[in-house]
């Protein structure tokens, strides 16, 4: 960095050349003004872990944590889609039914019709996409509230799931099929998990450095390379420690890795493509987005389709983990857990604010609570009440941070 050179954005009061101490101070200012980011979730996760660990010392055992990650993958995948819909300021309460339908399609297609797995999986996801298309068309053509559309969808798709399952009611998927292996038995070898983490963090860091260098070349304030390296190193160490701990038991599940990969891909699409920008714009101010020439209807339809497709993929994962599909697949808490995960993870219910990563963080919170309570008290009545209270807390935090953002003038 040459401090003598006048930067093109020298007048910018916000972007100060990134140095280590300045970066830390900026983070504190952001949190104070209500721009919380992932901080409350991570703090919450730590508190929850400490409480359950105190109550039952097996909670933080690597075996339990491996189970926890494997349980998270299916509903977490559903939650990625929910986060997208919430970004638009809409909601989809039919995701549970759609995932149940996808489970049923997978089981019936593979076991009863004896079709090849890739075809059946594709059929499951396509059926989800078609349902999303229907929601999107209803939303844009008739202007119906998405809550009502997807409430109707919840019932209709549940009926469709029962119809597909037919009289059997419950279908087991053979244990030796690769989809069940994928859901239950496939774990990354220890070396592969470390390699994956190192390669992805190095790529991520390199992208940031090259972006920063381009900014510097263009005469804009840039982050010092040392800051990026420090950040990446911290991230890499955290991930490596986590992977090492999981590797003490069975390790990092392939299904969990796929789930995280999906979240990364969606996050990239949201932050770095024109489509992602238009999703945030529509969630922030539909009218402004329309006037800016964004094809708002296409954004709605694409997001509803993606949401239902993710729900269907989550249903496939759930069937793989359970090695079965039945009338209860995708029922009961799938719906609420998926929506709660996106909200707890920090995606605002008011639209225009959030990320795909919120699904990962949020589902870890939900599953920690579920798993912790199961260890202490197998009664589900308490579990529902506590999960409800945590969801309420997350929404209150969302609403409060929105208010303090408004007070600090940060939208």
């Amino acid at each position, binding site marked *: 960095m040459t401090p003598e050179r006048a930067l*093109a*954005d020298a*007048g*910018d*009061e*916000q*972007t100060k050349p990134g140095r280590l101490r300045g970066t830390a101070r900026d983070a504190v200012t952001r949190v104070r003004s209500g721009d919380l980011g992932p901080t409350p979730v991570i703090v919450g996760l730590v508190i929850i872990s400490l409480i359950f660990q105190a109550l039952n010392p097996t909670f933080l055992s690597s075996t339990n944590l491996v189970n926890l990650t494997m349980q998270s993958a299916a509903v977490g995948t559903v939650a990625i889609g929910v986060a997208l819909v919430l970004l638009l300021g809409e909601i989809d309460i039919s995701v549970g039914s759609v995932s149940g339908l996808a489970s049923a399609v997978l089981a019936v297609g593979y076991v009863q019709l004896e079709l090849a797995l890739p075809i059946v999986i594709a059929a499951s996801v396509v059926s989800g996409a078609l349902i999303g298309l229907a929601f999107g068309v209803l939303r844009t053509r008739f202007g119906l509230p998405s809550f009502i559309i997807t409430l109707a969808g919840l019932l209709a798709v549940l009926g469709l799931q029962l119809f597909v399952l037919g009289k059997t009611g419950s279908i087991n998927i053979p244990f030796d099929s690769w989809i069940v292996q994928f859901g239950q038995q496939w774990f990354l070898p220890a070396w592969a998990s470390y390699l994956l983490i190192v390669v992805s963090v190095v790529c991520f860091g390199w992208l940031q450095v090259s*972006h920063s260098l*381009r*900014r510097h070349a*263009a*005469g*804009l304030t840039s982050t010092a390379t040392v800051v990026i390296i420090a950040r990446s190193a911290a991230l890499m160490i955290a991930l490596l420690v986590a992977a090492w701990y999981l590797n003490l038991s069975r390790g990092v599940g392939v299904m969990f890795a796929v789930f995280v990969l999906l979240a990364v891909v969606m996050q990239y699409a949201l932050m*770095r*493509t*024109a489509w992602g*920008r*238009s999703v*945030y*714009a529509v*969630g*922030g*101010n539909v*009218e*402004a*987005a329309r*006037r*800016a*020439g*964004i094809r708002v209807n296409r954004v709605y339809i694409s997001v509803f389709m993606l949401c239902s497709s993710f729900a269907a993929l989550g249903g496939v994962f759930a069937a793989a983990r359970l090695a079965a599909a039945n009338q209860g697949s995708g029922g009961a808490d799938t719906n609420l857990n998926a929506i709660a995960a996106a909200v707890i993870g920090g995606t605002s219910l008011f639209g*225009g*604010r959030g990320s795909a990563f919120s699904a990962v963080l949020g589902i870890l919170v939900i599953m920690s609570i579920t798993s912790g309570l199961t260890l202490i008290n197998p009664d589900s009545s308490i579990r529902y009440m506590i999960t409800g209270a945590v969801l309420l807390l997350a929404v209150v935090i969302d609403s409060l941070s929105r208010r303090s*953002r*408004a007070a*600090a*003038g*940060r*939208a």
Partner: protein
Amino acid sequence: MTYRTPIPLRTPAPEHLLELRGISKRFGAIRALEGVDLDVYAGEVVAIVGDNGAGKSTLMKVLSGVHPHDSGTIRFAGNPVTISSPTDSRRLGIESVYQELSLCDNLDVVSNLWLGRELRTGGRLDEVEMEQRSWMLLRELSARVSSVRVPVAALSGGQRQTVAIARSLIGNPRVVILDEPTAALGVAQTAEVLNLIERLRERRLGVILISHNIADVQAVADRIVVLRLGRNGGEFRVADVTSEMIIGAITGATSVASRRTAVAEPRT
């Protein structure tokens, strides 16, 4: 569409950008516009003033393609054109800045400026290029925006209006229509926006300024077109008109005295 620095015109004679003749528009039984004429030249600010319901907003919507007109002709740079959609209008080079701020509060200044026409490199957003050009544009307009990487909700009303107007220039238009740009702004912020309008004139754009505020209009406009009940109610050069004359034309009274009587009389 990309933003370029405008090339200075070689010909000193102002170009006749817009020529509206006999524009009419009705909504059911209501005649919003009846035979309205309007001319806009490059490098001039034309103010359109009028009472509520005089047809100012309808005229703006005709030009921006929101409500196509029923009869009359529009010529753009000498060629007859039809404007039947916002896309048509934008393609001709007419940009509209609406009264209610049409910005996304949750997005930062750069994202708002380039919304709907983001620069891309290989499918990815080219943030660096967009940010750099944003600074160039804001600098040229001598706009005071504290930061381009904060959500626009963090900006003052004047800065937000500045961003909204600057955004209309990204597509390199020839005519910019501003609907009440100083409404709800404080004194200093109004001055900021009026300065910005002068920058637009210096860039040889045709500026249509729709306003209620006679003082602002007199401060910045070259020509004032009065609309009254959907018709042309008079046209003045700012140099030789008083605010009383403008108000007289707006209300339909010929002098201040008769305007007062008109107001005092109970309406039936």
